[in-house]
């Protein structure tokens, strides 16, 4: 290695060091600490009873109905919202790509959900669906207590999530759409391919890498859902998600040992989801990164 190359290398690491140090200190160290805490009985209300308990916290979390129910709830919310977002987001991306009239206006208003604080949008929809305050029941001529029954509460939660995050999905997909060479579509059109055929045979296959990246990020994001559920139901009506369980055990009940076991399990779940995506669709993902 020449001295110039090694000087460049040193400078590069020097420049990256502060960012890397911050990321390691605030994530790697605490997750290690969480792992340590999760092997101990450590309740802040009874700190003198702290002791090493091995895997006992994991056994009690994995043996409890609450964890599995929360995991199922989280998966229901994740799958439902990400599926709808993908379809809606794709339609929106096509709209922004194709619309001749008011294209700028659509691109502008679509950023409004992105700019709204999640807590605020969750509250806005909560009030909208509220039986005494809201306009939804009046509009649909219903008498429904949306947030006090499980499935209707899921509906409101997923609906709010979709409202808030579809624009982001649409923007990602729009970026992918603009990368498709338009000559291909024009040529297919000349050859007599219908709009639907062009979508299925040309657009979708070329969009695959972008779609997978967008799906991965939105899935992980949806799996961590906390704000909307906490604001709308606080986990009542059997709508608790894993993040809400973690928060309740850690911060509301101050049981750091048990709560850290939940934290570590959430971390492992996220790891599994990412690995599934990367293993299952590794090639297209790295292809998308290289662009």
């Amino acid at each position, binding site marked *: 290695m020449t001295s110039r190359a090694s000087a460049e*290398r040193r*400078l*590069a690491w020097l*420049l990256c060091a*502060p960012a*890397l140090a911050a*990321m*390691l*200190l605030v*994530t790697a160290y*605490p*997750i290690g*600490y969480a792992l340590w805490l999760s092997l101990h009985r450590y309740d*802040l209300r009874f700190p003198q009873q702290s002791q090493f308990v091995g895997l006992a916290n994991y056994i009690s979390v994995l043996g409890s109905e609450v964890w599995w129910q929360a995991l199922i709830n989280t998966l229901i919310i994740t799958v439902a919202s990400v599926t709808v977002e993908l379809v809606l987001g794709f339609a*929106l991306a096509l*709209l922004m790509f194709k*619309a001749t*009239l*008011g294209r700028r*206006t659509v*691109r*502008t*208003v*679509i*950023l*409004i959900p992105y*700019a*709204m*604080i999640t*807590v*605020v949008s969750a*509250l*806005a*929809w909560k*009030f909208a669906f509220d039986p005494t305050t809201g*306009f939804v029941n*009046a*509009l649909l001529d219903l008498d429904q207590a949306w947030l006090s029954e499980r499935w209707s509460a899921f509906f409101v939660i997923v609906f709010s999530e979709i409202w808030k995050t579809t*624009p*982001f999905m649409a*923007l*990602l997909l729009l*970026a*992918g759409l603009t990368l498709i060479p338009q000559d291909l579509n024009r040529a297919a059109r000349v050859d007599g391919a219908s709009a639907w055929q062009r979508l299925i045979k040309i657009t979708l296959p070329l969009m695959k890498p*972008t779609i997978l*990246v967008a799906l991965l*990020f939105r899935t*992980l994001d949806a*799996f961590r859902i*906390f*704000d909307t559920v906490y*604001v709308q139901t606080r986990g009542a009506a059997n709508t608790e998600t894993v993040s809400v369980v973690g*928060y309740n055990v*850690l*911060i509301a009940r101050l049981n750091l040992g048990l*709560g850290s076991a939940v*934290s570590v399990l*959430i971390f492992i779940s*996220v790891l599994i989801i990412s690995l599934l995506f990367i293993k299952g669709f590794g090639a297209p993902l790295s292809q*998308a990164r290289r662009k």
Partner: protein
Amino acid sequence: MQKRLETVFWSGFGIIVMIYALVPVAWIISLSLKRSGDLNDQRFIPSAISFDNYRAIFEDAQFPAALWNSFGIALIATTLSILLAMFAAYAIVRLEFSGKQWVLAGVLAISMFPPVSIIGPLFNLWRIIGLFDTWAGLVIPYMTFTLPLAIWTLSAFFRELPWDLDKSARIDGATPFQAFFHIIAPLAAPGVFTAAILVFIFAWNDFLFATSLTSTNAARTVPAAIAFFTGSSQFEQPTGSIAAASVVVTLPVIVIVLLFQKRIVAGLTAGAVKG
């Protein structure tokens, strides 16, 4: 004919999208302007307008404090995050070094990291070292969790810069310092500004750290404060106050986002797809 039909179809679709995006905003504004007696009238448009809710939230100590905390914390976190990200993005874009893949992998890992996994340890650490319920206690996690977004966005922008221009300026006799500040910095400024807006919005939006790591007006930010608003009596729902507070924190961000709409779209998509 078919072309015309397509235009009509996409325009109709566009109108639906606009309604979709605007309804919750219009609804929360409408709620905030209703008189307290009208809050339960289930009407989308208020029958009479009153600013009582706004007066109430600014007379109370809690909301102005939260607004100040939110603004200060988000601004400091943004400044630090962008500063660190600029160094890293410059190295990623301009320098050849082995281990670049590792830096990128680390950044990707942080962007996938679930924050709920570390709120317990941070809560305990902050309590022990005295950062609990302080500005620094929130600035540190916000700075860290926005780094991936900032690094991706900045690298995408930096890649487009005509870096060779500074060489020609130096041939013309400028010092490296002058070349950087007169040629490169002005060209990089829009990208840095865009990244800063995205990071600021992220920090402004956070609820999980804000509820877990604060407990009083000393550092509680707006999202947490709104979620824990209580009515003036236990029988009165604070719906009107919540709505007014929501409008106050939402409108400025919407205005900023709409003003810089084009750049934000570029930043979001560049950061996420090309990183």
